[in-house]
């Protein structure tokens, strides 16, 4: 199988078939990352399109020594999403306690949904830094190294965010379970 890097090189030289093959191989992962981060199909479509346009525009800057092409694509998607989140509402990763406290209404709603949707909502309610780590490592099975390259942080930071993110999810899901039982 031709590597992502070779497909990218060919695409940048104007090979449409290579670009199509690369897109078809990686669009699902990019789309799902955007979907789990934003919770909106339309946003995910736009982000997927913008990621691959950006790849054609600045794919020459991709450096295999710094991570895989997929982590490069995740990184572009992440930056596009963060820009959208900033426009929508400023997100304060330090205000963790506030976010958890403000989850009551969401959890009321969650008790009426299927488990999958409950988990999806819980993931979406995580602050962005924790959500990114959970989505990449637990939902997309990215390695810590790939996640670190995409998130532009050390591997240790990915591990700690992942651990914290899982703990927060556990807390949210526990509240939900307790409520549905009572």
């Amino acid at each position, binding site marked *: 199988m031709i590597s992502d890097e070779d497909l990218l090189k060919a*695409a940048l030289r104007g090979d449409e078939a290579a670009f199509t093959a690369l897109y078809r191989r990686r669009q699902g992962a990019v789309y*799902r990352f955007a979907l789990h981060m934003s919770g909106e199909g339309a946003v995910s479509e736009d982000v*997927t399109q913008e990621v691959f346009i950006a790849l054609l525009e600045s794919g020459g800057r991709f450096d295999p020594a710094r991570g895989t092409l997929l982590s490069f694509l995740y990184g572009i998607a992440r930056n596009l999403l963060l820009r959208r989140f900033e426009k929508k509402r400023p997100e304060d990763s330090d205000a963790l306690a506030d976010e958890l406290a403000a989850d009551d209404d969401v959890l009321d709603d969650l008790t009426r949904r299927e488990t999958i949707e409950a*988990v999806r909502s819980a993931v979406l309610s995580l602050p962005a830094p924790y959500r990114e780590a*959970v989505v990449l490592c637990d939902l997309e099975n990215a390695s810590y190294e790939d996640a670190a390259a995409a998130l532009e942080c050390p591997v240790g930071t990915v591990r700690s965010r992942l651990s914290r993110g*899982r703990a927060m999810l556990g807390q949210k*899901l*526990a*509240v939900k379970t*307790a409520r549905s039982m009572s």
Partner: protein
Amino acid sequence: MKEEHVKEDYVLQALGALAESDRKREAPPEVEARLLVAFQTRRRSGWRWAAIVATAAGLVIALLLWPNRSPKATLSAVQPFPQVLEAPRPIREIEPTPRVARARRKLGPKVAAVRQSERREVVTDFFPLMNPAPSFGRGQMLRVQLPAAAMQTVGLPVREEHLDDLVQADVLVGEEGMPRAIRFVRFDVK
């Protein structure tokens, strides 16, 4: 306290279920179509146009495949598109260009005959995509691929079994990035 904290393995199990349920989710085909139009445009005209065209191509596809748009209503709206006549020279010429003609003379009549028989483009009239259309200053002609069902939406007959086939079309895009008119292309072999 124990009830308040779900164990990590439960969280991982729940995340695994979510990942599995979304495993096959991917971007719809329209995204690929828009990107390919942008890719082709980039090769020809650079990135300023590619960005505009990705948006315009999306609009064309949405406009033509809009389910509420009945063929009958569209058929009555089909008129020659006067602004197209004022459009700048398209980047893809339908007729052989003088340059090609010169090359043909150099290659000799036999080779020229083979070349000529290779492909001949037959195009429909332009169908307007904006009604009423704002004045047209400058623009660009783009070659795109669309499902044949798009031809029905402008009143052109398409057999049922060919609705999903891909056909080529020229889209005239205004400098503001809006698709103004479309014509469909068929290749005939002499």
